[in-house]
């Protein structure tokens, strides 16, 4: 990570040893380095959780398979879900927020650099704790055991009686610790965006990435806290003899569900909103047009932020709420689809009339649009309580949320990596390898997750380590698993591209994509201080104004 410095003649500068470099990285408070640490950490867990998924898919290729035992399978799906949400999704998006927000608002760093570092290391500790359970948690027979209660850890399955040993406690503690890290980062993002914008950058001139990360951070404050509270209650039950979720003492299993999903639903919007931000930055650049309807994009996101806090019980359509509650959550869930749909139309409107360049980041964005459309529509189906009473807890839901999380979040993250890797490292990722990665991953994704809807419609529930051969699910599961392997190959190619391009990639220069936001106004990679002098902006696309002084945006805003 060399900064764009010039050599001072006549001075001997010693080369840094690897110990010094390591020390610098471990003690850094620079938002760019912390951003990279978050992203690398998340990519590591992407691979780990991906391997967990592959083992799950091998077990499910054939009915009555014995590839793994039921105990191991149950730990695998618990770890896969927990890892992907908390130690892949959240960190990678916090990483991009950390890296990009200060650059895009013309600031030198986040509002609280030390809090930033502290939050990262807390999150890292959380991931370590979760995987330490493999070694440390003594299960019934004295060996280490990963948690096996599902990533939602429903009560009373998590009670001492039904989950002896410490595997559940590792789950609880890992998330509690990383939850504090998430809240710290959210506070930092909000303070940075509200208090550190460069002169001229009114809120109405901020890049959409900043706006959407602001909304995301606000949601983290409101959503992660209920999970923190619920986990404290779970620990009180398990260790202090509390009865929060103890059904034998009059406690309520439903209460855990409500608390968990009050976290869980906004959480998935926390995961997707930064990806909406990526779309809103990347699609305009490769369509060569500004984002269509900036004010509505902001309003729609804020709307999603609020409405998504009121939809949580659509995850509970089978638990026996009364018809009024089910109807309420139906209408709110369908309502949140409206601003989401609007955003898809706005991205469409951005491409419309443009001159689309099919560089790799744009390929991932276009795929995102198709996939998020489908995911949104299956979401509408799941939001209809009556329809959902058949679909929920089946592979239809698994297909839906992988469509949003892989087809949405992972594709969005890939787009972001291809787009901003040149800024972060100073080198371009290989375009050919990128296209191979894209097409392979696309084919594998659709083979797996398009087909996966069907076993759900045919009655296959989720979280089962094997299935009966007389239900018509066999061939579908086989093909789904094959798709998983295709995706794995694509990810291997992607990782190879990341590594090879770091050393051999074409030099990127400041602004390889001819883009318009402030991060492209400094070198690649940026110097530690980001900008030589704090910029002064007069429109939403400061670099467009610079490049087109005859027709600046500032004239129209």
């Amino acid at each position, binding site marked *: 990570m060399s900064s764009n410095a010039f050599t001072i003649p006549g001075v001997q500068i010693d080369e840094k040893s690897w110990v010094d470099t390591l020390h610098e990285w471990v003690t850094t408070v620079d938002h760019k380095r912390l951003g990279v640490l978050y992203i690398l950490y998340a990519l590591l867990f992407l691979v780990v959780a991906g391997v967990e998924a592959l083992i799950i898919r091998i077990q499910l290729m054939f009915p009555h398979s014995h590839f793994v035992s039921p105990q191991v399978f149950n730990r695998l799906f618990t770890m896969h879900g927990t890892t992907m949400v908390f130690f892949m999704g959240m960190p990678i998006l916090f990483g991009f927020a950390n890296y990009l927000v200060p650059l895009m608002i013309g600031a030198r760093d986040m509002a609280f650099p030390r809090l930033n570092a502290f939050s990262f290391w807390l999150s890292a500790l959380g991931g370590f704790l979760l995987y330490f359970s493999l070694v440390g948690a003594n299960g019934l027979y004295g060996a280490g055991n990963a948690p096996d209660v599902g990533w939602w850890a429903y009560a009373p399955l998590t009670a001492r009686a039904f989950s002896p040993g410490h595997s559940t406690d590792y789950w609880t503690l890992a998330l509690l610790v990383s939850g504090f890290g998430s809240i710290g980062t959210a*506070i930092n993002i*909000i303070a940075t965006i509200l208090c550190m914008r460069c002169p001229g950058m009114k809120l109405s001139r901020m890049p959409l990435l900043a706006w959407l990360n602001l909304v995301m951070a606000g949601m983290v404050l409101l959503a992660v*806290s209920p999970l923190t*509270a619920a986990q404290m209650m779970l620990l009180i039950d398990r260790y202090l003899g*509390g009865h929060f979720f103890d059904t034998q003492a*009059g406690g309520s299993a439903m209460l855990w569900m409500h608390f968990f999903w009050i976290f869980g639903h906004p959480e998935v919007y926390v995961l997707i909103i930064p990806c909406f931000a990526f779309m809103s930055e990347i699609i305009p650049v490769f369509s060569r047009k500004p984002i269509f309807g900036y004010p509505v994009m902001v309003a729609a996101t804020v709307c999603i932020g609020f409405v998504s806090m009121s939809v949580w019980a659509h995850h509970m359509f089978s638990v026996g709420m009364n018809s009024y509650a089910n109807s309420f959550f139906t209408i709110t869930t369908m309502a949140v689809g409206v601003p989401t749909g609007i955003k898809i139309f706005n991205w469409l409107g951005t491409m419309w009339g443009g001159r689309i360049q099919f560089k790799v980041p744009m390929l991932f964005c276009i795929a995102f649009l198709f996939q998020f459309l489908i995911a949104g529509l299956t979401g509408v189906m799941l939001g209809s309580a009556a329809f959902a009473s058949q679909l929920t807890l089946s592979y239809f839901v698994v297909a839906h949320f992988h469509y949003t999380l892989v087809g949405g979040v992972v594709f969005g993250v890939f787009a972001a990596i291809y787009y901003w890797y040149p800024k972060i490292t100073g080198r371009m990722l290989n375009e050919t390898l990128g296209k191979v990665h894209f097409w392979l991953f696309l084919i594998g994704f659709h083979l797996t997750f398009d087909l996966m809807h069907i076993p759900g419609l045919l009655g296959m529930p989720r979280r089962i380590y094997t299935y009966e051969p007389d239900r018509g699910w066999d061939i579908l599961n086989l093909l789904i698993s094959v798709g998983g392997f295709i995706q794995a190959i694509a990810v291997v190619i992607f990782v190879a591209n990341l590594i090879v391009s770091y050393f051999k990639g074409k030099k990127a220069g400041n602004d390889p994509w001819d883009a318009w936001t402030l991060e492209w106004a400094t070198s690649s990679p940026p110097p530690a201080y980001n900008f030589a002098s704090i*910029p*002064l902006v007069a429109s939403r696309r*400061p670099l467009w104004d610079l490049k087109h002084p005859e027709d600046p945006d500032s004239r129209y805003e």
Partner: protein
Amino acid sequence: MSAMANSFPQAPATWRLPDRGKVAMASLIIAESAIFTIFVVAYLFYVGKSLTGPTPRELLETPIFYTICLLSSSLTIHFAAKSLTRDRVGAFLGLWVLTIVLGATFMYGTAQEWHRLIYEHGFTISTNLFGTTYYSLVGLHAFHVTAGLLMLLIVAIFGLLGRVGVQHSHRVEVLSMYWHFVDAVWVIVFTVVYVLGR
């Protein structure tokens, strides 16, 4: 970079942004409020639902005196912070220490109440649903009071050593926001536990 500055005719005359200490503390307060809300919801949900054991009516004595102590400490800290902005360090210190004394008195009250409940009535967090929700809600609040008292104490020590001046008034203001939050939470906990829950 300088080229950019020259291209823009409309430089804003003054560029004022919110204070990041206050924004950060406000965000923290929002997150903490969400945590407390969940514990309050659990408390209210379980009112009257214990299968056995003592009820709130049988056990609880309304802590009026200690509540007055805690709520007045909001007043004293407000005036303490005000004094510091006016560089009246003596007044600031006196009011600040008074705040700590009032907060500590409140904690003593809670400790006394818990001692009575546990040792005289054998009522603990595992007794019944009321026990679980009571001790966790009041306990979570007491934990936040303790954390606040520790922070106030650190400032008091620096103040008594003569190291606190008007240049720290902003940080003191941010800290006092936290203390006001802790008091506001007590208003809610008091209402829920000692008024509504009985």
